[in-house]
């Protein structure tokens, strides 16, 4: 098998901003002293006059983004997920969400795959926090191709959007001519009748691997990539639950309030079936290499497979 191309979605974010910046003069990028890490530095190189470094002051950055948005420009505010969704939650809620301003939040370094920096920087709560803000779109891409499409769709969407990108290089899995991205529309990656695996972000690729392993044992799993957690593609989720009778969610996020939470809320009301939430089990992360952490916390293909087997 040829070597799989791997790209971190934070790099996709930086590259997509440059492409969009070429097309749209009204696009402005904000950062909070993390341009090298969030990769908005790529944009800064191309459009220095449209890259605003706010310094280490994320709450102020969100407010500045809101103010810029009132004047008709489209700001992309960038920092780590921990500080975008965590530290600046109330600014995002009151200065961006409540007035429904056209601010795009590019949150990088989501989840435990941040790696060595450890628990303080490993945000596993951002989907939950952002999802509670009325009108906020919450999304997390599975690879480079999806990340770029997502950034473009976020620009086109009128209203606030929260996007989570990762630090770790992840395999490109959407490299096919039929691939089509639409905010709020899930993508069926594999058909199956025995159970449904719903994943997002870097958990999509290992979920596909786990499904392949299950297939070797005669268990056919349908695999859905839900890149947009909010608005959730309820139609697709409900149909899959009715069709397969069992659902597993997989995400690099707390099992509380994220993709698993969103799917459970939807299914409890519309199609109650047994659900297993795979994710971070209400604990903090820790320091270590990203790949080793994903393995330890059961988010690699083997861990996902094992947890699904225990569930069914």
């Amino acid at each position, binding site marked *: 098998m040829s070597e799989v191309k791997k790209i971190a979605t934070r790099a996709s974010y930086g590259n997509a901003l440059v492409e969009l910046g070429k097309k749209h003069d009204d696009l*402005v990028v904000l950062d909070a002293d993390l341009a090298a890490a969030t990769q908005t530095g790529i944009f800064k190189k191309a459009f220095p*006059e*449209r890259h*605003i470094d*706010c*310094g280490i*002051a994320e*709450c*102020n950055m*969100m*407010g*500045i*983004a*809101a*103010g*810029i*948005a*009132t*004047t*008709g*420009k489209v*700001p992309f505010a960038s920092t780590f997920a921990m500080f975008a969704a965590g530290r600046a939650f*109330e*600014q995002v809620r*009151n*200065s961006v969400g*409540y*007035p*429904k301003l056209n601010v795009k939040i590019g949150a990088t370094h989501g989840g435990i795959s941040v790696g060595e920096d450890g628990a303080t920087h490993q945000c596993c709560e951002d989907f939950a926090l952002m999802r509670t803000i009325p009108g906020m779109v919450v999304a997390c891409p599975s690879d480079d191709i999806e990340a770029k499409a997502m950034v473009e769709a976020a620009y086109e969407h009128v209203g606030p959007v929260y996007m989570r990108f990762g630090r770790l290089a992840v395999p490109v899995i959407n490299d096919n001519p039929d691939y089509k991205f639409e905010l709020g529309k899930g993508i069926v990656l594999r058909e199956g009748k025995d159970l449904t695996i719903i994943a997002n972000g870097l958990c999509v690729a290992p979920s596909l691997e786990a499904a392949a392993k299950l297939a070797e044992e005669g268990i056919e799993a349908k695999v859905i990539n839900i890149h947009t957690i909010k608005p959730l593609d309820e139609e697709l989720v409900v149909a899959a639950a009715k069709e397969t009778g069992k659902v597993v969610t997989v995400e690099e996020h707390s099992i509380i309030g994220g993709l698993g939470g969103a799917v459970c809320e939807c299914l409890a009301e519309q199609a109650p079936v047994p659900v297993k939430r795979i994710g971070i089990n209400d604990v903090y992360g820790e320091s270590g290499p990203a790949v080793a952490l994903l393995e330890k916390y059961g988010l690699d293909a083997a861990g996902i497979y094992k947890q699904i087997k225990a569930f069914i």
Partner: protein
Amino acid sequence: MENLELQKTANEVRKGIVTALHAAKAGHPGGSLSAADVFTYLYFEEMNIDPKDPKKADRDRFVLSKGHTAPGLYSVLAQRGYFPKEDLVTLRHLGSYLQGHPDMKHIPGVDMSSGSLGQGISAAVGMALSAKLSNDSYRVYTLLGDGEIQEGQVWEAAMFAGARKLDNLVVIVDNNGLQIDGKVEDVCSPYPIDKKFEAFNFHVINVTDGNDMAQLRAAFDEAKATKGMPTAIVMKTVKGKGVSFMENQVGWHGKAPNDEEYAQAMADLEKVGEALCQK
């Protein structure tokens, strides 16, 4: 507009504040009344605005960072013709567009939703920065409370504005000396306010009487002439100004007048109005 006319208008704005709060049965008279003069100066003299075209692209912007004094802003907007004065009595009522704190989505003339203290100044800074980015000439004004500047975000915004030399930004601090829990210096002293803004590379103008139109005019003229740095106008005011029993009373920070108190407040303001007409 002449200073005397502005004073008369401010008195009408005060009547609107008291009337709205009486009808709302809740809200913040003290800081609305202390800022009634600066609201009036901004909307009737200083800012380039058009009530018939509230979203005009090149308009000057105002962000009420101390959003709880919305009755003051609403009253001046109504007085200026953004919406009917009769609507002021719907303040805080269920279904009214006049929300307890400014809501830009529904209120003509409100440039930014605000109310959570410390956040408005950041939005104002963003607007000022945006003007610089596209070489627009509009100016941005924001009004903060002296208690509000206890919020750390205020200083994040001030540092940024100073560093970026946003000379199209005017930050006004309403130094009425009182916050919910008592005197600002007793709760958590923000003093010296002027030196703090100076340290953040602002041009600072101390106004000894922020309820005096002549002093406000001098301050805003000086701000406009200031290039290369943002301006902070730190103005000493009287909380509850114009209503005898509310002046300098911490208890009137966030309480609405009852029927009796409303009648007395309006009588006070009528008297002020009559005196102004004698001038």
